[in-house]
């Protein structure tokens, strides 16, 4: 109800939206660099490709908000992909049930990390490094190293054109849900508060351990879902799914402006961060940039994006 009308503050606007501005810049540059970039087909591909990474990054965001880190997401993707495939193929389950089971198993792996961190007091980096190794091992043991082919018309429904590409809609829905959870629920705010000052919350009588544990569980479940997406896209559940995805996901969260110290970060910015990373790969492929320099360029763009982040949010110098 404030009557004063403020002049539009450009600086403030840029600071608050720097991730989105970087994304926009990248889209514009890409559109100039390649004719095919803005085609429906390419944009749809990007969405289909990035749906999984976006979910993984969102799950990770919550872990990071609470001051943790999760390296196991890539491996849990593999568990999600292989479990859902095996249940359909070997046990003849309906694909929706198999997805449910895969999510629960992903959640269980997350819980495992969460218990190690919250209750056993192991540093998140190490606990999830261990879970990462274990989950990958489990995926390989389950499939005996052979990709499990899934019958068409089951899990592939998730990417079916006839149903308007469900995974895109699921992802958009989850983005909305988690934006709300982050901003409008006590859960979201407590997770942020824990990353900001855990002791304060404990002393306010909040069972912080449960919350910390829950973020890992959430991250595990979303990673498993991302794995299911991969399985759906290739109609195959393979134990190699998601290799290295953890680093991309962390990069996405940071490019989205979150602090790895916890307490600061937003869902939509994280989504933008994941898309930025995805776009970099996409445009280099479209332009047929030679493969070996691709890594170098990707590294440089990550640095540039983060520097832009920092430059547009710079506060006064203090020691």
């Amino acid at each position, binding site marked *: 109800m404030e009557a004063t009308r403020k002049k539009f503050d450009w600086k403030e606007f840029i600071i608050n939206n720097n991730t989105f501005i970087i994304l926009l810049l990248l889209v514009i540059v890409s559109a100039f660099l390649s004719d095919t970039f803005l085609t429906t087909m390419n944009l749809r591909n990007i969405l289909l490709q990035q749906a999984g990474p976006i979910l993984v990054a969102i799950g990770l965001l919550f872990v990071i908000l609470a001051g943790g880190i999760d390296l196991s997401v890539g491996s849990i993707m593999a568990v999600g992909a292989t479990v859902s495939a095996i249940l359909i193929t070997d046990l003849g389950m309906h694909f929706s049930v198999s997805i449910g089971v895969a999510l629960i198993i992903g959640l269980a792996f997350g819980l495992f990390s969460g218990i190690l961190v919250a209750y056993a007091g192991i540093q998140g980096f190490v606990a999830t490094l261990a879970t990462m190794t274990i989950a990958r091992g489990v995926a390989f043991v389950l499939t005996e190293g052979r990709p499990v082919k899934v019958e068409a018309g089951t899990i592939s429904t998730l990417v079916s054109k006839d149903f308007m590409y469900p995974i895109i809609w699921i992802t958009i829905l989850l983005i909305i849900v988690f934006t709300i959870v982050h901003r409008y*629920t006590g859960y979201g705010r407590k997770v942020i508060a824990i990353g900001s000052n855990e002791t304060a919350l404990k002393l306010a009588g909040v069972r912080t351990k449960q919350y910390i544990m829950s973020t890992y569980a959430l991250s595990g479940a979303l990673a498993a879902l991302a794995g299911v997406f991969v399985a759906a896209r290739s109609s195959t559940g393979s134990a190699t799914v998601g290799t290295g995805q953890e680093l991309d996901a962390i990069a996405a969260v940071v490019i989205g402006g979150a602090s790895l110290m916890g*307490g600061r970060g937003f869902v939509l910015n994280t989504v933008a961060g994941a898309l930025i990373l995805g776009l970099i790969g996409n445009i280099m492929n479209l332009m047929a940039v030679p493969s070996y320099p691709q890594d170098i360029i990707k590294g440089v763009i990550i640095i540039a994006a983060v520097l832009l982040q920092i430059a547009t949010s710079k506060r006064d110098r203090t020691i």
Partner: protein
Amino acid sequence: MTPEYIVEMNHISKHFGGVKALQDVHLNVKRGEIHALIGENGAGKSTLMKILAGAYPKDEGTILIDGAEATTATPRAMLDMGVSVIYQEFMLAPDLTVAENIFIDHMQQGLFINWKDLKRRAKEQLQKIGFGNIDPGKKVGELSVAYQQIVEICKCLAKDSKVLVFDEPTAVLTHSETEKLLELIVKLKQEGVTILYISHRLEELFAISDKITVLKDGKYVDTVETASITKEQLVTMMVGREIEQLFPERNAEIGEEILRVENLAAGDLVEDVSFSLRKGEVLGFSGLVGSGRTETMRAIFGADKKSSGKVRYFGEEVNFRSPKQAIRKGIGLLPEDRKTQGLLLKQPIRYNATLVSRQGNGFINHKKEQQEVRELLARIATKYGSTEDNADSLSGGNQQKVALAKWLAVDTKVIILDEPTRGVDVGAKTEIYRIINELAESGVGVIIISSEMAEIIGVCDRAIVMREGRVTGEVPKENLTENHLIKLAMGV
């Protein structure tokens, strides 16, 4: 039948590793009274309160709240029994807004948070205690330390507790805010809330408390009616000896001018500051919280950028771009917040004491260094276990001494002390004043920023008063009175 005591703590013992923080301590508080808790730094006051809050488990003893024994002493359980604590170290989440911090454990009423409503409720709470000017939508990390303290208080008040514990709430507040807070506490008492109050500022205790319990070295000394005791008697109970003079005499010879600041501007706040400092002089800086004293000194010291103005040091114009340059020239600064800026809490006391003197990268002789540190700490009567214990094992006052010790290990010509006695007990305070005197007597120019006017008056040869980033007055020793300082600080 309601029991006589609302808080009954009996035979409480607690140890941390080898340190016996509390031994067989009693604390009995009647309903509706303001009960003060006093003792030297490290006497165990905060520990006792943390046990009451369920933050630390006790080794032995019983706690009864309103006659009911607290068997599961977790923060949640104690909150449910009606005990809230405003901690000495702020317990806020800097990344969340004021409103969220105030209602941290009950933000939403329905499924979702209603931000408008949350902010409105926070505003109401803030207004209730007279700080309606704090924006409930602002992030706590962006507030000044004083305002953070206010939010912390507000957060506990929002819980409708039966028992409220204030652990040194005024250490970071200035005069006017302290007044407001004390008024509020008295009002709460009238509303039937029981208050436990910890402070090293004796005049506050005498102003509001009904009873005082004294702790010493982790042991219970006595509980007395405030009305039946004098300040001197109380100090003797606390320290175990008489303190003749809070502010010891100084025989320093004030010499030539060594530092001159002209029209200094820095950051958003400091606009036009000029002053000078002489050899052997103790110069006080008074003013309200946020008046820009800290920022002025940081700019001189090279910790922040100057935007304009000149600094002359021994007649020569200097422009320090980093603390390193200032230190090389012989200027030292003891920052106002020892926890975040002054100490390596998780490292040995020894490392802390040699933080400035050990600038080189060469080899270290640990034995020799230990010996040096022991001598250094003995000079300023620091209480500690071993030089290898971590700094966070020390009580507040002794932490402050260790932070100060690092500057005593090097030759400084100018030393700036920002709130040097914040949270320090009377006994230790006199010792710090003694150290300040020694420094001045050896020809060092000393600048003291203090929000305690008594301290400025008692210790300084001259005082500068600041308000909103400008110097509003310079007061010579003979004119140093509270009245005068307040007028200049408030701009009336």
